């Protein structure tokens, strides 16, 4: 049934039953693989037609509708969650860098003072 499902050649009732079945977590005996294989074939079949470009007006309308859509678009949950995680990681890395800098700053100052003192001794030894 997978080839007919992919070709959208099933009747509406069969088609929705297949869609529901594929969406379930019930054991699939190769259904998804069969659908994927048929999809590859269907995807290639479109190449047999001579391509045709729509009028420029269509592109303008698509651009306008996408612009409208962008204003109201919400991110899908997964993308939003991942983006939030990246932001959190960014802030954690920044906080860690500031912490390391603050922790090392007094040590650096002491090391610098020690170096200057040593430098002074060398300078005085030279005289």
């Amino acid at each position, binding site marked *: 049934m997978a080839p*007919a499902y992919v070709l959208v050649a099933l009747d509406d009732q069969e088609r929705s039953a297949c869609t529901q079945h594929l969406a379930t977590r019930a054991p699939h005996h190769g259904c998804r693989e069969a659908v994927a294989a048929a999809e590859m074939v269907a995807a290639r079949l479109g190449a047999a037609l*001579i*391509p045709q470009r729509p009028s420029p007006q269509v592109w303008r309308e698509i651009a306008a509708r*996408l612009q409208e859509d962008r204003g109201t678009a919400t991110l899908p949950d997964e993308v939003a969650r991942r983006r939030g995680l990246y932001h959190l990681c960014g802030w954690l890395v920044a906080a860690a860098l500031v912490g390391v800098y603050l922790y090392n700053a007094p040590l650096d100052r002491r090391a610098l003072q020690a170096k200057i003192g040593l430098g002074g001794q060398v300078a005085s030894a030279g005289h």
Partner: protein
Amino acid sequence: MAIARRILRNVEEAEDIVQETFLELWRRAPQFDGRRGGLVAWIVTIARSRAIDRLRSCSTAGRTIDEVMATPEVHPSGPPSPVEHTERRLTESKVAEALAALPPEQRRTIQLAYFDGLSQTEISAKTGCPLGTVKMRVKLAVGKLKTLLKDDFS
């Protein structure tokens, strides 16, 4: 757009489908899986499904087989670049060869199902073949095409 026009036989409706397809692509972009045939294939799949949905909702599927078979092929409105042209010709010829290698009755069934958007029941009614035979032809044809186009997938 060619697939929508082929299925709907109407330029304005096909252009509507192009619009709907691009909006759907925009909304479903995170779902794109390149392993399942590439971007163009995904676009064609969405456009074709939309066109079939419209065809069936408008009940314009009452076309006769003669009408379906007699409709001339559509032509591009703008010339492709030489590279595009060569790649396209290669893909077209591979698919055309694969289709030509099918037994005539299987090829005709695939033409009616894929390129004309008819359901198996409609194909059965219009060709006079039993539904079981049509189902078997679809299954066998897709199986053969899968083997014939195997190199193309890799």
